[in-house]
């Protein structure tokens, strides 16, 4: 899901909205992220393209807000509340996600199954 400069890249994305959980003074999202442009993308176990420096969902807390919102392990986060997440450092991503003032985060994510679904329908029903 990374893109080659100069090459258009298409991704099928899903909108996911996570209602943060307030636990005492903390806002809980219920998932973990990995990746970012400051991390070695080769070690990312979730990416297909090992040069992809995107932000990936590495963990989902069972029963947590993220799971409720149908976020899944391995999802790549493309945007958070409209902010680009494909070219950010790990901490920038975390900051955008854990904003204290926002009780809701809206993500655009992409995952393999989404693309497969589209590709399948592409094959089955060729566009007129």
């Amino acid at each position, binding site marked *: 899901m990374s893109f080659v400069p100069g090459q258009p890249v298409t991704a099928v994305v899903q909108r996911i909205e996570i209602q943060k959980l307030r636990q005492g003074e903390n806002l809980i999202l219920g998932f973990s*992220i990995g990746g970012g442009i400051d991390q070695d993308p080769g070690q990312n176990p979730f990416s297909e393209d090992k040069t992809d420096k995107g932000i990936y969902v590495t963990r989902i807390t069972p029963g947590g807000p993220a799971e409720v919102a149908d976020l899944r392990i391995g999802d790549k986060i493309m945007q958070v509340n409209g902010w680009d997440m494909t070219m*950010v450092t790990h901490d920038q991503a975390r900051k955008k996600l854990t904003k204290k003032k926002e*009780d809701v985060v809206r993500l655009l994510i992409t995952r393999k199954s989404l693309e497969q679904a589209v590709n399948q329908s592409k094959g089955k029903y060729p566009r007129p």
Partner: protein
Amino acid sequence: SEGSDSPTTHTKDVTTHTRAMKVKHQALQDQLESCLLQLKKLCIREAELTGQLPKDYPLLSGEKPPQIRRRIGAAFKLDEQNILEGSKLSLADAELALQMKIYEAARKLCEEHHLSKAVRKSRLQQCKVEEKKLKKLQEMTFQLRLERGRSSPLPAFNISKDLGTSDDSSLSDSVVQDEEVTSQSSQPSSYPVETDPPLMSTHSSEDGSYMSHSVAPRLSPLNSCQSPCPSLDSNLSFNSSCAYDQPPIQNSPWTESSLDQPYQKSKKSHTSNKSERLPQLEACPSQTSLPQQLSHLRLGHSHSNSTPSTPEKHIYRQLSLRLSSPESSALKDRGRTRVPRRRPTESGIILPDSLSPTKNFLHHEDSNSEKSFSSYGSSPCQEFPSNFSRHYLSPFPLSSPQGSYGPPAPPSTSFYHPQSYLLSPRMQRTYYNTDMVYPPNQDLARSRFHQHVPNRYDYCYRDAAVPHQRAPSIRVTPPAQKDQLYYHANGHPHQVVNEQLKSWHQRSQLKAPRSRSLDRPGAVRMKTTAARELTYHQNHKYQDQVNVQEPWFIDDSSHYMSQV
């Protein structure tokens, strides 16, 4: 049969019969032998490739298995480690999935009402045990994944600079919980920057109110450099510009961080944010937690006039503007003439555009919009969705998922109604209920619009279009099944609606920039308090994140929900 009465013919019959049987037997035996031979050949071939004689090799009694040498340069080589790890991982995954269910069940047992103290206690204990197991398993699968990722033979992985750290064993130490430590040690310059109070304050002033939040992403694409160093940040504060000018540090080990703990703590923000939060919630669709959303709707009703638009949508507009043409006027013209038969590449632009205009239009341009919009705004809510669905859904089956990658999308949010209504009758009913709670007015209509925003977009990068831009631009098209609506429904109602929507679209394009409630009185004050809180809580940050994996209790969530 004819001569069955004579004994001679009878014996003759028997002998011919046995002879026939013998022949048949022989034939079968021959066939068996040839099959065995074939099997042997296959087994030997397999042994030549794998170096091991399969168990299926037919051994006659007393026969010794043949000694077979594995052929050098056999057609393929099995990566045994890979296969092994793969299975290990899938096993662990299965176990994890199971444990997840077990944990969920345990948790639900805990939640049951009317439990005696002893039972509740034991269940809680059980729940904790299961949770521990679950965490362990999660850890394990994660590690396995990491290892596999490290040793995966993907070509890109062999890039030399990646190899340097990935072969490093430091990964295993640094991966999981103690990411604070690693990030501190591995990127000493960037970390303090991130937590620098002045920087935080610029951030908070950007996002202190929703209005400014949406300004930020709107502007940044126009600067044509969004990341890795957000240009806004560097423009706004001296501090951050110094910090961001440094190139991002590459190749720190791949780590993860839990988002269960906040970046900063703040007590005050709870109250001050609540009023801020509600309008936004009201304006945005939540398809997962309906009851929650509805309650927000109810509460947010009073705020509706100042509802800011979602920043997300603005970025789409801006990005697509840049994508198609630098001048927005060009797009407007195009939108006027070409809306009905947009090519796939353009279709994406329209949808998100039309989303925010819907909202903007409604609450900022009420007086102007009455001509074109009154039919939507004031019509009883039950009416037009069903009309729409009749118009658009009858000609074709719902089930065919046309690709979500292209067909033209007229700028209409209302087009979503037929689909979602038809797809989820239960949802529909719920909405009706809420409709009855409130008098049917424009706010209601608006909130209804937003509940049907699709949750799948096409997301396209077009780096080629803007050579110097580092951040990808985004094109958004509506989801699959909805597309087909636009595409096929060439009937009359489609046209009519299109006309209305076109003008609508254009107007909203003109008005969009004004749509944000820039002068909310509370906004400025909130910023400053937020900044103060931030600086204060920086000190506690590392502490906070030590207990990263704090258990998540459902009790709190239910409490939370009811509170809202």
